């Protein structure tokens, strides 16, 4: 199946799996129940997609559609009920935590620090998986952390305190820590949630550049349809635990489909660069 082809829910799309595939999500399902004896309150139905090196895949959908569950499953934090998630042939939830963190880095929404830390201390944490449990960073670790800060354009923040820098700067530093892990797969959970539009574009532009240069495979969960349409190579559209479509933004952003998923009136235009643009139609009432 060629890249960009629309994949209907529940169908096998393993045909796209090849030697170039870095991440393969194969018919993965999951059920969440607060108590094992109770019926699940959320289920994720069979979901499949692949990610190649240098590719950004955005997982889209309304609240409670299962986007973050997909990310947690990929990260190995949850065990699939059925199906499997392979990264270079190995199932992610079966990897040892340290081995997994050497290959997969997660950029989450900012979490408060219990005690203040300097930016460089924070970024050096990304070197933790590359050594024994008790370790002291060496010159090589420092060079990698400095390079990570340079790559995200935050090297000027090195000696600042984490609680003194802005939200946009903080997200760049969190990204730098993920880069310091030297991962093959980058996972981002709504990384631009609290950022202004300028900082959002700035962040995603940096991410796109780094993905191209370092050949990361990237999966990003976001609510930003237009930014995903602009920066993602593929999108996975979800609703109520179901994977509705997988494909290029242009192929997935169909007005009827988006209106049904997001329960609002929308227009979808194709821009000159081939990327879709979604606008909300103002209600006449």
């Amino acid at each position: 199946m060629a890249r960009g082809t629309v994949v209907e829910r529940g169908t096998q799309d393993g045909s796209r799996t090849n030697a170039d595939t870095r991440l393969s999500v194969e018919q993965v399902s999951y059920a969440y129940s607060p108590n094992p004896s109770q019926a699940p309150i959320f289920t994720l139905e069979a979901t499949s997609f692949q990610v190649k090196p240098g590719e950004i895949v955005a997982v889209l959908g309304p609240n409670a559609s299962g986007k973050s569950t997909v990310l947690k499953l990929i990260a190995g934090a949850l065990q699939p009920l059925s199906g499997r998630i392979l990264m270079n042939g190995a199932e992610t939830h079966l990897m040892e935590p340290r081995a997994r963190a050497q290959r997969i880095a997660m950029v989450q929404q900012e979490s408060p620090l219990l005690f203040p830390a300097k930016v460089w201390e924070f970024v050096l944490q990304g070197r933790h998986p590359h050594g024994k449990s008790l370790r002291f960073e060496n010159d090589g670790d420092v060079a990698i952390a400095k390079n990570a800060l340079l790559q995200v354009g935050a090297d000027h923040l090195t000696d600042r305190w984490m609680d003194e820098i802005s939200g946009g700067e903080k997200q760049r530093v969190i990204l730098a820590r993920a880069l310091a892990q030297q991962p093959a797969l980058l996972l981002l959970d709504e990384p631009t949630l609290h950022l202004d539009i300028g900082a959002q574009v700035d962040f995603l532009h940096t991410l796109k550049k780094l993905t191209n240069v370092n050949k990361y495979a990237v999966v990003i969960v976001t609510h930003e349809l237009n930014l995903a349409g602009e920066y993602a190579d593929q999108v996975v559209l979800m609703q109520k635990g179901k994977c509705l479509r997988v494909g290029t933004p242009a192929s997935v952003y169909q007005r009827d489909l988006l209106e049904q998923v997001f329960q609002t009136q929308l227009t979808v235009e194709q821009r000159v660069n081939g990327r879709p643009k979604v606008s909300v139609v103002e209600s006449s009432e």
Partner: protein
Amino acid sequence: MQPLTLSKVAVRCGILALILFVVVVIALKFGAVPVSLYGLAKDLIGVLIGRSSDISSEYGMIIREIRLPRIALGIFVGASLSVAGTSFQALLRNPLADPYVLGVSYGAAVGSVLALIIEPHLALRPEIAAVFTPLGGFIGATLTIAAVYLLGRYHGDIDSKTLLLSGVIVGSFFSAMILLLITMLPSSSTRGVVYWLMGDLSTPMPPVLGWVLRTGFFAGFALIYLTASDLNLLLAGEKEAMHLGVDVKKVQLVVYLAASALTGLAVSVSGSIGYVGLIVPHVMRMIFGTDYRMLLPASAFGGAIAVVIADTMARTVAAPSELGVGAVTAIVGAPLFIYLLRRRLA
């Protein structure tokens, strides 16, 4: 960007060890029998570097048999409480956590008070009677650790919020039991129990208990220190730590058991000495930063120094009467903690 190195940790620990040595020498000087500070320091250095085999005979017996064992007890109790407090602050992600937050001290107190009540009725041999109360305390602490662990699990794993709530509730329950037990004690024993609840280093300890305390401290400290890098990441949250390669559940279990055991051991032999395990970690954090690879040994030295100073004050300020060491740490610690809290808020 200058990361922490092993040599930096070693140099700073060396400085702290030197401060502890000076504090110990000064603490050895104070007491009813006058001792020359210069002569004592010279003798101790001579013994430490192997140049002489014993302390001057003029005051040697008092130093060896009375003051030094008590100071050694203070060192290991202070270090244990402080390391436990530092560990619980990371484990529970709560800067207000101290060694007693999970109720271990109350469990130990119930065990000890029960032992105090039972002991007169058992006609024990003197060597067993000497360890009976600490043993009761340790059994109480161990049962509390197990109870809080079982109650604090969520879906089979430690959950820091559930653990904290369970510890607070178990602690409150045992606290009420202590009050109940005190009313059952004869009035002659009440003073001893109150001293024990405030913290007390004056009771001579059998050598075997000293050995257990020292061995327990080094084992517990080593286990916790091996997770120091992991604890740095745990400060940012369990999810963050997991994504950075920490085996969160394993680290939580090891730190919970080791820090609780340190607390149980310390409380069993000295009672509940308050504030040391809360304030020393914060003071050390202000001096050396938040990195647990430095903070844990710094807290061990800091706790030892704090308790030796407090105990020296406790036995000299109102001499020949003696104050409870826990009363001294509370009187000094409470205002110091308020100062640190206000400074943090500012």
